[in-house]
């Protein structure tokens, strides 16, 4: 029922490079072909929106940030000198999200309790499509855990939240995350471990929703 992915490697041994189809699209966009650039938009808009949504926590703000990010990317396309276009694009999205958070006045380290108590009426909790093989009870339990997990992610400070999303949700490597965020790798590892620990402790507030392996056992 749950999709399982192997954890992303800590550091990629081979420098990432833009796939050939992306390179062709970039070249066409640089020639003025808007359709070519929209090929890139279609390819990476889901990733961009997913990151923006979990960063900004509202649909409208995330949509605005993503649209603005693609426009910025189109304008700055000539400055893309190589590497992984996805990471380059995501950096624009992250910066746009940070700008939005600053403008909102919430680019501060918020306590996990404050986030948990906030009534997010605009928020949308992503739900997987109904699995026809699961019973309604299982569906409800899965949605409850998913919702609880989303709340836990939202409760993290923005920096830790971003690292957690990029690494554990979207599978970026440490160095890619460092490039996207513009921080040293050691900072990325530290933030990631704190984010995971905080999220685990947050989830433990509802142990009945958790898998058996995550529930606290007798600790010496």
């Amino acid at each position: 029922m749950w999709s399982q992915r192997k954890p992303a490697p800590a550091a990629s041994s081979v420098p990432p490079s833009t796939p050939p189809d992306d390179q062709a699209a970039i070249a066409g966009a640089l020639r003025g072909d808007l359709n070519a650039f929209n090929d890139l938009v279609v390819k990476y808009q889901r990733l961009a929106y997913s990151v923006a949504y979990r960063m900004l926590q509202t649909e409208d703000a995330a949509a605005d940030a993503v649209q603005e990010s693609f426009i910025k990317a189109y304008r700055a396309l000539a400055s893309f000198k190589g590497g992984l276009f996805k990471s380059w694009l995501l950096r624009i999205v992250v910066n746009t999200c940070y700008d939005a958070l600053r403008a909102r006045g919430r680019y501060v380290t918020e306590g996990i309790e404050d986030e948990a108590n906030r009534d997010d009426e605009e928020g949308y909790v992503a739900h997987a499509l109904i699995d026809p093989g699961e019973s309604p009870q299982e569906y409800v339990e899965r949605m409850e855990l998913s919702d609880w997990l989303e709340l836990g992610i939202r409760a993290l400070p923005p920096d830790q939240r971003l690292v957690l999303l990029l690494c554990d949700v979207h599978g970026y490597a440490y160095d890619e995350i460092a490039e996207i965020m513009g921080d040293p790798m050691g900072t990325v590892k530290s933030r990631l471990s704190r984010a995971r620990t905080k999220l685990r402790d947050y989830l433990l507030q509802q142990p009945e929703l958790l898998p058996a392996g995550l529930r606290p056992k007798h600790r010496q």
Partner: protein
Amino acid sequence: MNFSDDRLISDELLSAYLDNAVTPQERQLVEAAAAQSADVAWRLESLRQTVQLLHALPEVPLPRSFALRVEQVQELPAAGTTPPTATLVPAPRASVHSVPQPSGWQRFLAGWHAFWDAGNLTLRNAAAVSLALFLVLLIGGAVTNVGGMTPTGTMATAPMSAPAAEPEIVALAAPPSAERAAPAVGPAAADGEAAPLSPPGADETPGDATAYVAPEQDAAMARMALPDIGAPAPVGPMAAPDVPGLLMAPGGLGMGGGAEMGGGGLGGDRAGGAPGGGDSSLLPPEAYMTSPDEAVIIEPSPSPGEAAPQAAARMADAAADEITMQESVPADAVEAAEPSPDVAKRDDSVVEGAPSTPAAVALVPPAATHQPTDAAYPAVQVEPGEPSAPGLPLLAIAQAGGALLTVLFASLWWRSRSRRTTG
């Protein structure tokens, strides 16, 4: 493992271990610590489970397509940036890539279809058909029962005599002041709790209303301004002493006239002592009086100008009430016909099925200022509707069968969904 060793195993180290971002020495340290310390092992496993939950996090659906339009890129100031060397080629809108994004309603429908399309469709359809059959039988049975209960009798033939009743009503409404001041509470009221009550707008002097009425009665009683306590009055001209099986609300429908009890109601199955005061000959038969322990409110006579319509309305109500219980007239029709909403507050067994004003008024014969006789009160035969006796058992059996089939097919379909999951 001792405490000092555990402190070497930080959460950051465990997190890096999960991502294979540790040196070989660190890996050995972590693995040894996890093997020797349950705490370290739990911390490692809990972090691993947390990461796995994040891997399985559902994707956030796109609200719309973010493909750029020409107008979006043409209006952008290109300060500090290197614009594309070639001129923009506006692409036709049809060729712009757009991902149709499902709306919330479409997502719901998609999930809805996915849920119902699982399992054995034949069983699902059979369950749906049996459920529909069951509902049809259920509704048909209900309609049959409602239509089967129709009143019969001579009610409709009674003349509309509300205007004609006015003289009598006026007569009833002219109380001698002395009699009015008399404590019109009979033994019943005397036995009961005495709490003077006066209807709204009643022209009363303190102490005129002397009887305590049970809460379920007071609304009804309040409308029945007894014209005179002890004055000769036809008690319940609508009373049908001979009507069997009439069911009355507690406290009855105190009709006016000398019945200090508010007419004592026409409770056919309630025996009440005659209320004190007034000419006993004016009182309805004992069987139709309220019981001694039931007090009724006694209102002072209304003003002459108000007496006629009020009395007519009350008498119409009483007539409606007595021709009731075993009929199946919808309650809402009763309420609509009632001149006062208070009628609805009475016992449902009384109110239900009581056609009110037009027919009830029609039943009001010319009031007689004497003891009612059979001639004055046309016998009202209220016959319960003929139930569809022969069809009921079959209908019930069919309904039960439909319900069972629905449950059976639904259960089998649900099992088929589960099997396809595990199989």
